[in-house]
């Protein structure tokens, strides 16, 4: 009697895990993202352009802050992208730690710089808004400080991922940092509620009516959607490039090992990812 076949070492124990593995296949990801990328990129460009133009030239000035409130159409979408980007970074890090899938590691590594740019853009545009309104480029306000911490978390993740000679160790360390840093997200969101801050309160909430006039709300939402699509498109393009670079490195190493004989026929795995 033959012994029962042992389950594969990487088989997930839950159905949700199988779904994650299905979409984490590099070959499938390349095919799917190749079709999706043009739509995401063009949608992001068009919506961002429409939203920014609307916010700059068509939307009315704020009754209290006047024309300076137009900076909101850059500041708020970049803040949303920075926060949701960190959520994606934390999710990829969790997937990396739980399932140890290299594609999750690559996704986290490629999200980091783009998220850092969004957080930096949020801080710079906020500073440009704060100077004419508050009379200061920067104040150590709870919202501003927690956002600055998010920016440093992104930078720390970028540095940590690249700090080790062995990439796997860098990805593990970065994933742990990203998960610990996720505690900053609710602090940022609720900072204007928990503390008496100079930064204004939230104008939009999931469970409350917006306190912003509708003619200012539409360009804000359109720009936010455009920035979000653009963020996803940039991350996917970077992730595709990273996968192809790994495949290239694998091919070159196989070619070096075989003296250039094994290139045209057999399947060559992406380094650390299987054949895809």
């Amino acid at each position, binding site marked *: 009697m033959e012994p029962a076949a042992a389950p594969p070492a990487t088989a997930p124990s839950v159905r949700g895990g199988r779904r994650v593995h299905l979409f984490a296949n590099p*070959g499938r990801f*390349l*095919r*799917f*993202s*190749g*079709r999706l990328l043009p739509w995401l*990129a063009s949608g992001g460009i068009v919506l*961002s352009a429409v939203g*920014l133009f609307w916010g*700059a030239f068509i939307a009315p000035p704020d009754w209290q802050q*006047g*024309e*300076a409130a*137009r*900076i909101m*159409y*850059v*500041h708020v979408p*970049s803040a949303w992208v920075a926060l949701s980007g960190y959520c994606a970074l934390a999710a990829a890090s969790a997937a990396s730690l739980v399932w140890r899938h290299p594609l999750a590691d690559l996704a986290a590594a490629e999200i980091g*710089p*783009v998220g850092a*740019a969004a957080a*930096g*853009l949020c801080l*710079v*545009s906020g500073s*440009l*808004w704060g*100077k*004419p309104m508050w009379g200061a480029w920067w104040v150590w306000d709870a919202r501003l400080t927690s956002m600055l911490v998010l920016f440093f978390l992104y930078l720390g993740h970028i540095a940590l991922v690249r700090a080790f000679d062995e990439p796997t160790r860098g990805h593990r360390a970065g994933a742990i940092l990203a998960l610990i840093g996720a505690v900053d997200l609710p602090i940022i969101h609720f900072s204007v509620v928990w503390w008496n801050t100079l930064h204004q309160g939230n104008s939009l909430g999931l469970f409350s009516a917006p306190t912003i006039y509708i003619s200012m709300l539409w360009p804000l939402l359109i720009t936010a959607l455009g*920035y979000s699509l*653009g963020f996803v*498109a*940039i991350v996917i*393009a*970077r992730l*595709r*490039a990273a996968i*192809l*670079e790994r*495949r*290239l490195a694998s*091919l*070159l190493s196989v*070619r070096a090992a075989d003296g250039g004989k094994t*290139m*045209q026929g057999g399947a*060559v795995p992406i380094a650390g990812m299987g054949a895809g």
Partner: protein
Amino acid sequence: MNVLPFIVLAYAAGVLVPAAFALAAWARLRRAERRLAAIDPRAQRGQGRRK
């Protein structure tokens, strides 16, 4: 206080920063595809791109 320079600077950053990242990502992807296609012709039809 004239707020126009602050608005212009914020919008310039809001356009240039994402555009720079998008161009850099696009260039990196094209470079990787070109290099891969140069050493492995199968890569041209295996990357999910519709030619």
